């Protein structure tokens, strides 16, 4: 597959609540910025549009009917992918590589503040026959997974808490992050328990926001006056949806997605290639579990490396310099796009106070949350 350029990016938010705008207005703001950034007119230049969304979180059935207006996509090919933003980017990459489209727009948004019953909604993602009668809270499943991960790898609760300290401290320097804080490990561990051993402060909180990206072929890029970032590899995979038969300590679907992306670049040792990473931290332990699944460290090593500062903003492999979902808030299926945005700004040298010096290759990864085993990985370069 040929590499695809990210020619323009735009965002709106992120904030815990945005009562003054609708999801359409939020998305419109991000779209206008992205089109200006790429120097394009969506009605004239864009041939296909992709939105990532889920009906229940939108509060509207057949939500895909409500996506064209705010993007300038009326009477154009438009599809909704019920996946993360990285699945949307993968779709755009495939569309460009067919040769039929040379410019595609991907959009993701979260109007989390409209959702009054999030635990009840996520519980509706459980198997209706086998699991839902048990009345499991989704975070209970995360607690089970964290417990198994700690047991199998010897990772400590202090090491998980260090992820919170690091990411929320990083968020203080990110103007898009509403949940920045200067915490200590004791602050995290002495907080309330969400679902043991998962602490309340180890779970990301939702935020409102929207991200829009303009993707195009190498040929099309030549006629644009913009600073491109390239999607060099992208992979995605699902594991077992069943709670009864999945791996609880490891993330085989992330391993598979990463291998797919690495193979497109011919990478066998990602640790020697990747300069920084924006990865899942929906829950703090996921950052550690994911680092190991991505092959960026050995099983059981991520917690130790985090304690030693290896993944700090000034460490050897900065991870979630943006603040991650713990610091920026969780944007539902826009999360992968929000992380890609941070990687794009870093690779362009436009990340401001958070800028990591001399970066060329970024890894972005996302997970679709409890109870799924669905994830994606992208490798970006400048």
């Amino acid at each position, binding site marked *: 597959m040929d590499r695809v350029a990210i020619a323009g990016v735009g965002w709106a938010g992120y904030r815990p609540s945005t009562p003054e705008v609708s999801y359409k207005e939020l998305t419109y703001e991000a779209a206008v910025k992205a089109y200006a950034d790429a120097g394009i007119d969506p009605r004239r230049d864009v041939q296909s549009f992709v939105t990532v969304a889920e009906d229940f979180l939108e509060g509207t059935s057949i939500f895909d009917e409500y996506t064209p207006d705010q993007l300038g996509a009326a009477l154009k090919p438009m599809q909704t992918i019920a996946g993360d933003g990285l699945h949307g980017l993968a779709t755009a990459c495939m569309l460009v590589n067919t040769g039929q489209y040379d410019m595609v727009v991907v959009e993701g948004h979260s109007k989390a503040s409209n959702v009054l019953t999030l635990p009840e909604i996520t519980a509706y993602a459980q198997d*209706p026959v086998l699991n839902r009668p048990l009345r499991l809270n989704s975070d209970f499943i995360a607690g089970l997974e964290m417990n198994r991960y700690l047991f199998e790898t010897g990772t400590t609760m202090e090491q998980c808490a260090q992820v919170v300290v690091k990411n929320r401290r990083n968020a203080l320097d990110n103007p898009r992050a509403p949940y920045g804080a200067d915490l200590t490990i004791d602050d995290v561990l002495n907080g309330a328990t969400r679902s043991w051993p998962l602490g309340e402060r180890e779970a990301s909180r939702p935020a409102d926001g929207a991200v829009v990206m303009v993707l195009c072929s190498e040929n099309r890029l030549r006629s644009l006056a913009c600073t491109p970032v390239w999607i060099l590899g992208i992979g*995605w995979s699902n594991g077992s949806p069943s709670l009864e038969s999945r791996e609880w300590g490891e993330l085989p679907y992330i391993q598979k997605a990463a291998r797919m992306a690495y193979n497109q670049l011919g990478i066998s040792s990602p640790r020697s290639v990747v300069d920084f990473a924006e990865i899942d931290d929906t829950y703090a332990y996921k950052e550690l579990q994911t680092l190991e699944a991505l092959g960026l460290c050995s099983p059981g090593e991520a917690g130790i490396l985090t304690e030693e500062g290896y993944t700090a903003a000034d460490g050897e492999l900065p991870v979630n310099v943006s603040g991650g979902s713990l610091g920026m808030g969780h944007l539902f299926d826009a999360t992968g796009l929000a992380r890609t945005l941070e990687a794009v700004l870093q690779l362009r040298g436009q990340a401001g106070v958070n800028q990591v010096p001399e970066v060329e290759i970024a890894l972005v990864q996302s997970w679709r949350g409890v109870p799924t085993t*669905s994830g994606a990985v992208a490798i970006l370069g400048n």
Partner: protein
Amino acid sequence: MGMRKVAVVGAGMTKFVRRALETPKELAWQASHMALQSCELTMDDIEAVCLGTAPDSFDGLHMNGEYLSDGSGGWNKPYMRSYVGGGTGVFVPIQGWYHVASGLFDVVLVVAEEKMSSFYPHAQAAFLTIFDHTTERPLKPNLLWIFALEMNRYMTTYGISKADIARVSVLHKRNAAHHPAALLGDAEITVEDVVGRDYAVEIEDLHVL
């Protein structure tokens, strides 16, 4: 270089029924299994899976695509769900097309699933939530009403009679009588049968078609 040509090499379809006893996963599995058998492939040959299903409220599941993944063969593989409202069943083969035409995959499995009977008391009620929550839903519109409005406008604009439209029902129901997977086939139905039925049933039949 021209675009990569993509072929359909196998297909399978479950029988359409009013209240399937199978779970959504099982329906997806049955159709997938039939498709693989028809072209003598196994899941080992499949590189990625594309799923189409919409909306979630029919199956009564948040992230229905994730729930359906193993039944559709999307285990330990790249798997993605697309939807474009009522056009999803036609769109998901397009999703399969661009997976292959991109050059990223050679063989993909395309699955479309819908189990409307999970919705109580009737799937039609799920359509109450498709309307804009600010500008339309307070008016309590119904899907049948908007189809009736469109039909009325179409008939008025082009001078088409109800009997003309009823001929479409007759044609399709007679065709369906010989389709092994069809639910609503009727080899003997006439235009008079369609026009003579009461309005709600007639419109509902129109939707089912």
